[in-house]
């Protein structure tokens, strides 16, 4: 009980010392504020970017293999002159994959084009037109907020129907229901039967919000679907229990037989998967994280030295008071705790201010850049931990020195 009373009293002494020397308190906690701000900002940005990237990659599907002309990863010995002569994935190859690939749960052929969409006097340029075969909804992860997906007949007969993105729906039809309305895609009338659920900016691009999805059979009447500029892809989703590697092995054999490749000939197609992207970004984020840690670490170290310095000054300044306290019966640990609390509070206040600045920045930057930036729980814990740790380490030596002072000499000190 006595200890608790002394504990409380030492906290009050520490707080009083901070309140009395406002300017000194403010200047010394600035170092920690800047340090915490620097390190937590870097960690928050890298964490948020990583989270957004993973979300984008996940929307592509981590169990989906993409049959394409070009590989996604480029090595230093990238033989582009070989790849440039490769044939493009073809709609007929999709049929073969659907019939013969045992490991495939579903597959879809897609092409992309840039078009202008019109409704009455409203017009939007540079809209991505995605032309896809029927099983697109089974290989691509998306949700439909309003309306429905294409029926089998609409897909196979190539009916002029479309599902449009949330941004397009709100821009073209701000005051009316979008379903059943006709928009003009490259001059052709297309009926809107669905609206994608809003998903926000994607770090990899290709957000559904600004897309128009039509059946690929219908797209034949709008564009030349054999054009190389349309980036044709066959997306194949693995069955449950089949790994991507197993699916890739099977697809390799199947594509070679479809394209009638000689046993000694190189593959003339690329089988890509999302892990190729995430692996590339993992190493990048590791480097950014370490760089941020080094920069922030130095700031924190400087802040710690600042607090240690101010604590030595504080002890020197209050030597007489320490002497009086000790002569009146104050224990060594009472003096020790008093100064440790002072330095921990100082550091903690600096840390809290740093975290608050980061929080304000995440809110404003998130709105400005249209990207979700969040100050995570782990970064808040880290900010508090660093603050307390720096306060404890930098304040202990001055505090211990104060606790060991001889009361008679301390009272006599000027």
């Amino acid at each position, binding site marked *: 009980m006595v200890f608790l009373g002394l504990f409380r009293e030492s906290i009050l002494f520490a707080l009083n010392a901070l309140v009395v020397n406002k300017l000194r308190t403010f200047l010394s906690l600035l170092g920690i504020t800047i340090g915490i701000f620097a*390190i937590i900002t870097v*960690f928050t940005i890298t964490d948020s970017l990583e989270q957004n990237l993973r979300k984008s990659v996940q929307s592509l599907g981590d169990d989906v293999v993409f049959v394409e002309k070009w590989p996604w990863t480029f090595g230093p010995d990238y033989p582009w002159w070989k790849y440039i002569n490769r044939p493009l994935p073809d709609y007929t190859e999709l049929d073969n994959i659907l019939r013969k690939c045992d490991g495939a749960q579903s597959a879809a052929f897609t092409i992309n084009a840039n078009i202008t969409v019109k409704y009455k006097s409203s017009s939007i340029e540079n809209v991505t037109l995605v032309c896809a075969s029927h099983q697109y909804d089974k290989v691509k992860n998306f949700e439909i907020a309003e309306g429905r997906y294409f029926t089998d007949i609409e897909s196979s007969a190539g009916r002029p129907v479309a599902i449009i993105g949330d941004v397009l729906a709100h821009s073209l039809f701000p005051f009316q229901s979008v379903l059943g309305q006709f928009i003009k895609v490259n001059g052709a009338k297309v009926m809107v039967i669905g609206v994608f659920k809003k998903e926000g900016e994607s770090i990899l691009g290709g957000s559904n919000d600004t897309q128009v999805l039509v059946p690929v059979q219908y797209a034949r009447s709008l564009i030349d679907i054999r054009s190389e500029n349309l980036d044709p892809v066959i997306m194949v989703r693995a069955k449950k229990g089949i790994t991507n590697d197993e699916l890739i092995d099977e697809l390799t054999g199947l594509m070679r037989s479809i394209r009638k490749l000689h046993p000694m000939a190189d593959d003339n197609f690329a089988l890509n998967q999302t892990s190729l992207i995430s692996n590339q970004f993992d190493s990048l984020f*590791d480097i950014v*994280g*370490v760089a941020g*840690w*080094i920069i*922030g*670490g130095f700031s*924190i*170290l400087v802040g710690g030295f600042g607090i240690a310095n101010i604590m030595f000054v504080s002890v020197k300044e209050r030597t007489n008071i320490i002497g009086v306290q000790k002569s009146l019966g104050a*224990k*060594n*640990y009472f003096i*020790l705790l008093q100064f440790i609390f002072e330095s921990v509070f100082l550091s903690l206040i600096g840390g809290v201010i740093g975290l608050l600045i980061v929080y304000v920045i995440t809110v404003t930057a998130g709105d400005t850049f249209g990207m979700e930036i969040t100050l995570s*729980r*782990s970064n808040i*814990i*880290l900010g*508090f*931990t*660093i603050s*307390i*740790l720096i306060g*404890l*380490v930098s304040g*202990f*030596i001055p505090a*211990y020195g104060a*606790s*060991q002072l001889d009361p008679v000499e301390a009272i006599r000190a000027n």
Partner: protein
Amino acid sequence: MESAIRKRPLLITIICIIGFIWIVFSLPAVFSPSVKKLGDWYPALFGLIVASSFIAYIGVWNMKRWGCSLFIITFFIKEILLVLINDINYVGIVVSVFIISVMVAFYKRMDMNL
């Protein structure tokens, strides 16, 4: 007489200097991305261990028994934590046991008070 008993042996001085240098390098490692990846609370736990080790070294530097006791307690907590995350460092254990043996050897010459 008392100061003669509590005069810091050379071996303790060397151990403490090496310990302080180790702390300087360990402090930034507490909030390194690799520790952060282990879990939300691991930087806090490792931070506590580094801070305790630092305080223990100050105690031992001043030839205080509480420094030695705090170092031993910190050593056990640290090893339990490393076992939990499956990152046992046998060289680290040997070095720590050596340091503890040296501290214990001079334990009787240390001061009981704070």
